[in-house]
């Protein structure tokens, strides 16, 4: 087989992408070699099991994917505003909306949130790391190689083009031959392993590793949202795993689970997909709710209103999220009764969600609102999300949904919830906890620029799309061939570029703040307004997190600690701390599984089997691994703490 058989050729955009990928790759190689950073890269990052570093790697990858998905989005918007340019043809457009949707949900939103959880949750509960640090590294690398696999499809083999929902029979071997669809299946399968493992890992961490006496109902709300999310992950992801596996077996080994021939059941895919898919959207929204709650309470300088109700509403949402999947195909013709049931269950979700909105508003009541950048993102979320929420209820009214389904009304709705919910939260959380991660804040002025550009761009981009939907414009349409649709599409594209600008300013701010921001000296970065334990550690956080773990028996424990002058360093109580050793095994194991997946994508069975054997070998090796980690001596802890605290 020639290399030209697997490279995607003949397309200027793709040549451009190849060249830029090659250049970036070469530049990275050069920098690493020139500055002699290879060893540093390996021993500090690729082998790390430290939850904070893994979190940083998650967030960096997610930002990269936000960029990739954003470029996809811009290309689509250019095509839709200027259909006469012939910028993208049908096939291109189909590939691009598919990769855009998949990347944004699986490789941007989820890892971004998981990254924040990685860094913050152990700190919030007073833990020294995850319950299973090795597994945590494994999760990250499985996500990373899944992401890499999915992304190379652009230049090698061709991208999937059946939508992020990958409905059968379209996505089956008969109608979508070639490796494209396999990239989707294997990319998601590989990264799904990591998500599932993280779900279990965080669940155990939260349930078993809390500071002494911290009850479940003492936990910070972000930790609660993480715990609830973990339950959703653990129940939902196996469904995806099975569905992906069945479709892979269909495509690669010629089974007939979802095919038109051989009595297959194509609609079964839609069911399985959304049984995972709907809970999935709550996987990316509940942590966002948690972040907003933390940020709002902090900058309102007030206790979160209705803490218990907030927790219970998340639990109710999580339960309901498993009972509504049919609303994604009301139009399948399951009958009035089935549709009625799912219609009502869908609308019921609005109740706990509405309760949460009112609780946030009540938190602002009798508060002292300070408009910092994270607070701006969080405040902007409330009115924006309402617009997405009410249209969600409208979509839930099945009889009306027959007109909304598959139209731009739907596109507008889910971008309103995903961007105003998840993406705003990712930005809010990143800016909020940035000083914890990097030892300096992000510049506020640039941050506000980024915020306002993104915020305006967002509404200008997506609000008109509700009306496009009502005018009958279907989603996934590569050409706006109806004259009445054009003006609103142009407006929408302008908005998209506003968001693009906002993102650029945000990224520039990362660089700018790295150069010029004041370095943090205390751990309680936001003018001493921290409420939860993560602010009680010094900045940068020592790798063992807490020299001494505080005793917690209330919500917002750090407020009391500050009143009583307590810290996480009580010199006479310091004991040696047990820490896990760094190891390269997770990286290698997942690289091998990545190789196996790559082999399966092209149906090169030797490669697949080789990779699989290698991975199994790594697992066996792990079973005979007797490295129990090491102890940090008391002396070293004291030295580190004294230096960080300027004692």
């Amino acid at each position, binding site marked *: 087989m020639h290399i030209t058989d697997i490279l995607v050729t003949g397309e200027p955009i793709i040549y451009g992408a190849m060249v830029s990928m090659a250049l970036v790759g070469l530049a990275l190689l050069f920098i690493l070699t020139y500055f002699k950073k290879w060893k540093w890269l390996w021993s500090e990052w690729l082998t790390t099991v430290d939850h904070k570093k893994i979190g940083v790697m998650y967030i960096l990858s997610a930002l990269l994917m936000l960029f990739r998905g954003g470029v996809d989005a811009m290309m689509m918007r250019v095509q839709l505003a200027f*259909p006469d340019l012939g910028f993208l*043809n*049908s*096939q291109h457009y189909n590939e691009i909306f598919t990769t855009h949707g998949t990347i944004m949900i699986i490789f941007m939103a989820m890892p971004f949130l998981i990254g924040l959880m990685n860094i913050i949750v152990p700190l919030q509960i007073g833990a020294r790391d995850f319950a299973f640090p090795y597994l945590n590294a494994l999760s990250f690398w499985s996500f990373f190689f899944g992401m890499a696999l999915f992304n190379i499809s652009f230049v090698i083999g061709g991208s999937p083009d059946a939508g992020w929902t990958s409905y059968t*029979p379209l996505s089956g071997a008969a*109608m979508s*031959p070639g490796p494209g669809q396999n990239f989707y299946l294997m990319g998601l399968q590989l990264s799904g392993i990591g998500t599932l493992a993280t779900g279990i890992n965080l669940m155990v961490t939260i349930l078993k590793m809390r500071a002494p006496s911290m009850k479940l109902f003492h936990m910070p709300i972000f930790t609660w949202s993480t715990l609830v999310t973990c339950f959703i992950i653990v129940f939902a992801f196996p469904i995806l795993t099975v569905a992906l596996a069945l479709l892979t077996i269909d495509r690669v080994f010629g089974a007939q689970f979802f095919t*038109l021939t051989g*009595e297959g059941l*194509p*609609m079964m895919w839609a069911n399985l997909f959304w049984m995972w898919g709907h809970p999935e959207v709550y996987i990316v929204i509940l942590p966002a709710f948690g972040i907003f709650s933390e940020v709002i309470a902090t900058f*309102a*300088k*007030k*206790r*979160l*209103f*209705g*803490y*218990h*109700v907030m927790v219970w509403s998340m639990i109710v949402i999580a339960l309901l999220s498993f009972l509504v999947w049919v609303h994604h195909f009301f139009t*399948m*013709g399951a009958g*009035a009764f089935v*549709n009625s049931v799912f*219609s009502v269950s869908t*609308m019921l979700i*609005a*109740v706990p969600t509405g*309760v949460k909105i*009112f609780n946030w*508003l009540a938190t*602002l009541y009798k508060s*002292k*609102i300070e*408009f910092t950048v994270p607070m701006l993102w969080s405040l902007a979320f409330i*009115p924006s999300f*309402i617009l997405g929420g*009410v249209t969600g*209820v*409208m979509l839930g*009214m*099945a*009889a*009306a*949904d*027959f007109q909304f*389904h*598959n139209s731009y009304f739907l596109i507008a709705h889910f971008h309103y919830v995903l961007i105003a919910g998840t993406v705003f939260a990712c930005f809010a959380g990143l800016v909020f906890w940035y000083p914890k991660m990097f030892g300096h804040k992000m510049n506020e002025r640039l941050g506000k620029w980024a915020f306002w550009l993104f*915020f305006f761009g967002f509404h200008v981009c997506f609000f*008109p799309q509700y*009306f496009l939907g*009502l*005018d*009958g414009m*279907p989603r*996934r349409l590569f*050409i706006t*061939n109806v004259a*009445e649709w054009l003006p609103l599409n142009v407006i929408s594209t302008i908005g998209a570029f506003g968001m693009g600008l906002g993102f650029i300013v945000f990224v520039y701010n990362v660089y700018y703040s790295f150069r010029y921001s004041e370095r943090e000296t205390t751990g309680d970065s936001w003018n001493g307004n921290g409420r939860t334990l993560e602010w009680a550690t010094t900045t940068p956080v020592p790798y063992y997190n807490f020299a001494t773990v505080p005793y917690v028996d209330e919500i917002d424990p750090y407020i009391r600690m500050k009143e009583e002058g307590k810290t996480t360093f009580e010199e006479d109580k310091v004991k040696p701390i047990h820490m896990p050793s760094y190891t390269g095994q997770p990286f290698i194991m997942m690289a091998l599984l990545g190789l196996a997946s790559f082999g399966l994508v092209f149906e090169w069975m030797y490669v697949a089997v080789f990779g699989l054997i290698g991975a199994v070998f790594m697992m066996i090796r792990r079973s005979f691994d007797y490295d129990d980690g090491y102890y940090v001596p008391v002396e070293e802890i004291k030295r580190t703490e004294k230096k960080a605290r300027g004692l």
Partner: protein
Amino acid sequence: MKAKHLRNRWLGLLPLGLILFLSGCGQLEMTVLDPKGPVAQSQYDLIVYSLWFMLGIIVVVFALFAYMLIKYRENRPGRKESDYDPNLHGNTTIEVIWTIIPIIIVVLLSIPTVTTLFDLEKPPEPAAGEEVKEPLVVYATTADWKWFFSYPEQDIETVNYLHIPTDRPIEFRLSSADSMSALWIPALGGQKYNMAGMMTKLYLQADEEGVYDGRNSNFNGEGFAAQTFKVYAENEEEFNTWADEIKNEAPELTADRYDELLAPGMTDVQSYSNTHLDYVKHHTREGMGYVVEKYREQFKEKLHLYEIDKQESFQ
């Protein structure tokens, strides 16, 4: 500082203004909000009914939101000591109220949703004083990327265009020869899926004569954008004349000709003096794999339908 806060306050109201503005002036133009038949009308009514609730919710939340931001911002001049209560953390009465009200709203939205859902399963009722007409049965079958409309009553078949009589319910029997698609004529009512190996029913009706846009609204590959058709709604007489004309003048749809048409790709508008229903039944389990098996090799080729880039070639 001051100016910044003012900006905040009004920004929240911006989208609301847009809603009012666009829904005010757009009402006449947007297809879904300009129904041409009883089915679309019932869906329109439901949408408008729900919009009132949604507007209500938006107004309440936006107002509360604006109030909180204005009144409780930290450096508002003239803040009083009593404007800050850091330990306020709950109030059962108010929490019960704001749980009950959404539940009531959900109930109020559910009732018309459910009744409309059940109504949509039956042919639309005739207007008061008019006779009940048997629905006209039309089999609407898709194959990548075209539409076949078979009229068993008239024994004719059209490709990529549709004629219907006004004031008579149409019973669409939807099916697909290959990929999943959906029949959507927004002016006449909402969509339903066409699936191979199954038959779904969709009732629609036109009250006004006219030409409406119909399309496949469920993405199904390269030719998706071009899988559209025009709907000619005309009075009973004109419809019958048209049908007779097709019956008498159009060529016969032979099994071979039909097979050719099924091959993945696009075709122009066509008419035939018989239906394909005698040859294959795509909605049965036996007929479900017919096209895929016949054209497996052709599906493997990327068709690169470059002609669909040119808008003019759309109907």
